[in-house]
């Protein structure tokens, strides 16, 4: 599903990723951890083509991402569900609209989109707030909306950047079970996290990123 070869990423002459090689098979669940500034978020941004690497190759589901023309990006991104660290919710849309608008890009009819969105929101305990605007929600609720939006169209690849950062233990556990369900259904899941409890809760492959290189690749704890 993901193939990365010799990827480096520089910001103002500061090297964030240094010749990174990585391979994630379809249907795998991978945790990405490491100290702040190790390059976890940068790696995810490269995967969903928000940025281009300084050098190296990135392949996603058979498509080369790093050289992809912008006309090809929407199709690529529709295969990926991204849970952003900063939520990236549409401020002027309600919770329901924030979740359903991505379904529109998949050509799903409004009624069906509403049904699917409600189902995911209910699972995340947010169905009673479907008419609220993001600014009226707590951090945890906003994070759950972002999660619902990423999961609602059942993508083949889910990239989650600190998805439990604003959630309490129960909700974090519920999210993990949700991600596991999706993973069992065949989706590849990559979760960037600081949360050691989350890493310990699931015996999944864990990549430790340190100073732009993969320092450890195996089960947690190292």
């Amino acid at each position: 599903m993901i193939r990365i070869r010799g990827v480096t990423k520089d910001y103002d002459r500061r090297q964030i990723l240094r010749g990174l090689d990585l391979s994630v098979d379809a249907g795998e669940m991978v945790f990405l951890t490491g100290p702040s500034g190790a390059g976890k978020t940068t790696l995810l941004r490269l995967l969903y083509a928000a940025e281009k690497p300084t050098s190296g190759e990135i392949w996603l589901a058979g498509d080369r991402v790093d050289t992809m023309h912008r006309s090809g990006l929407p199709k690529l991104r529709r295969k990926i569900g991204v849970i952003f660290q900063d939520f990236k919710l549409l401020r002027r849309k309600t919770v329901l609209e924030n979740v359903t608008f991505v379904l529109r890009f998949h050509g799903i009819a409004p009624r069906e989109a509403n049904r699917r969105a409600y189902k995911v929101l209910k699972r995340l305990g947010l169905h009673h707030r479907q008419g609220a605007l993001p600014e009226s929600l707590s951090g945890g609720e906003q994070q759950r909306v972002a999660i619902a939006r990423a999961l609602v169209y059942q993508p083949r690849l889910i990239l989650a950047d600190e998805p439990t950062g604003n959630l309490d233990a129960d909700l974090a556990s519920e999210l993990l079970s949700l991600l596991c369900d999706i993973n069992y259904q065949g989706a590849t899941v990559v979760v960037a996290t600081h949360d050691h409890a989350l890493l310990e809760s699931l015996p999944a492959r864990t990549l430790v990123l340190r100073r732009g290189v993969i320092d450890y690749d195996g089960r947690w704890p190292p």
Partner: protein
Amino acid sequence: MMRHALAEGWLLLRSRGLISPILALSLAIPISLAGVTISIRQWLEPVIDLGDREGVVAILLHPRLDEADRQSWIDEQTRKHSEWRLVEVEPEELAVRMSTWFPYLEELLEREGPEMLPPMVEIRTRTPESVLDLRNDNSVLAVGPTSSINQVVGRVAGRFATVLFTVAGLLMAGAILFAGVWVHLELHRNAEEIAIMRLMGATESTVRGPFLVAVAAPALLAAAASIVITVVAVGWISRLAAPLGLATSGPMLLLLAAQVCCAIVLPLAAAVITLERHAATEE
């Protein structure tokens, strides 16, 4: 996708209340001005030479001048007045003209032949008055009307039309720029949402749709307004011009169609260019 573009475009329009009517008006005014100017030009063209062309003065030479004398006289006048262009009218051609102007001469001309007519020379000049001096020339039998009023009126009307077209063009350029700048500002205002939509897999058409709808709506309004303004203004001016004996008419359908095209296509083109530049910058 269309439903999304219409809904979001409507929201965009509603949130920027006065922009749409101002944009529609700023498009309609120059388009109507150009339409009215073109209509009036059409009325004037058959009666006034709107170009900066020369006037034509016809003179009749004395019948005693033979062909060599006439050529020598024409050469002499050409030397004296470098800005005149003298052309002798063929007798047959002159006979045709005389028969047209004075039908009762037709029979006489048929009987006697065109040779009975005195030779005519046409002088093309920007200053028809300067030909008046030829009245004292012994070789000249008669000098036709030498007033340059037609040229002067035509020149003034022509230049006035040019000024109006220029003003309309400048206003139109301003209105198109306005449409482009508005889209540019809205793109900046909604930059965060657009970035999120792109990250979620929105295609360029999904991102652009609402902006195009938001420009198309005032453009359609401008098209309708410019047709109404042109028809009303042309009708009103034609009533004013009726005593002058001008054969006035309403604006041509082709002109109205061109106005609709300008009102819709130009601001949309400005919006598309702005959106394209924005997408390229985002990349």
